[in-house]
């Protein structure tokens, strides 16, 4: 029986081939997302506020519900939940302030230079500053202790202009961000907006 001494080594050829294949796969995936401009959105929240600014939003299948949710500062903050089935947003600017482990703050900016198309938008907003226009607006009240069903506001279509929305939860089933520009900048302090 052979009693050899085991020792490991990295075969450069295999390593380079695997790395190249991996980088190619990564490049392929980024290219596909970049060409179609389609992405599955990342829900953001739970750490400070998340700001959404845009010039105009045209949406259909609008629903507004009361919501209590966790924010970066509180376990249960009153909010409103916006649900829009389909929306087109013009000049979208999303930014999020993040604290790095070093203690410095950075801001991640996502800007849509072309109209952004969103399907299945869910957004828990803590503060909304905007001009709103509804079509076939209806308010429904229900005698129930469940605060999420106590009242709802629905509209066939909604047009929001010059909006600044402070939100703590954002989810999109599908988002088409054509001409998106993503940038990271260093900031001194995070932006804070207190509810009036």
């Amino acid at each position, binding site marked *: 029986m052979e009693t050899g001494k085991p020792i490991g080594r990295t075969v450069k050829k295999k*390593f380079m081939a695997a790395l190249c294949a991996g980088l190619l796969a990564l490049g392929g995936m980024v290219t596909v997302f970049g060409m179609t401009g389609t992405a*599955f959105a990342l829900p953001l929240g739970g750490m400070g506020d998340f700001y959404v600014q845009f010039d105009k939003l045209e949406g259909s299948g609008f629903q507004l519900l009361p919501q209590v949710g966790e924010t970066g500062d509180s376990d249960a903050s009153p909010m409103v939940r916006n649900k829009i089935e389909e929306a087109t947003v013009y000049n979208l600017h999303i930014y999020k302030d993040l604290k790095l482990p070093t203690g410095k703050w950075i801001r991640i900016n996502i800007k849509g230079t072309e109209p952004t198309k969103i399907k299945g938008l869910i957004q828990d907003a803590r503060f909304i500053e905007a001009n709103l226009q509804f079509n076939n607006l209806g308010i429904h009240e229900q005698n129930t202790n469940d605060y999420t069903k106590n009242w709802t506001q629905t509209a066939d279509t909604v047009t929001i202009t010059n909006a600044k929305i402070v939100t703590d939860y954002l989810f999109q089933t599908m988002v088409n961000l054509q001409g998106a520009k993503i940038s990271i900048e260093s900031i001194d302090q995070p932006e804070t907006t207190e509810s009036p």
Partner: protein
Amino acid sequence: MGDAAAKAEKKQERLEKARAKLEKRLEKLENAGKFKAWRSRRPFWGATFSVLAGLLILYIPIQLYAIAFVPGSFAFIGLLFGGLVLILGVLSYIFPQFSTVLGVITMFLSILSIMGALGGFLLGTLFGLIGGALCIGWEEHVIAPDANGPDQMNRPDKGEKAKTNPIDTSEVASSSSSS
């Protein structure tokens, strides 16, 4: 025929060089500490990069813990990918004989982690790719004590467990000198 002979000669030369390198490393390991000996028997850097990648990929979903457990949330998928990459990195330390498979899965999950975790600001994906590639490129060789030629340098069977005792190269050195 001449070409084939030349090729075979070149191949033998390459193997001899590789063997000489490994023998040198074995000699160095003789006086090295336990950690170095342990490190030499597994894809240490590949596993380390994979663990780092897993932690970086997990960073974003952990920051979003408040919503990461919402069903259907992409942050939950990020949590899953990051956790799996981390586990695969740890497994590479424990089961070096499966380094190729573990490396391939690490690379695959690192790329997918762009969805749901932004690939740990892409750094996690890059670390995962490097770690996975290092695991794939890693090979374990056994140098027989009575080795006298390049053919004696073989990879052990996949299922064979690496020896955990500190490597003694004295036999290799003596057998080489006696030949």
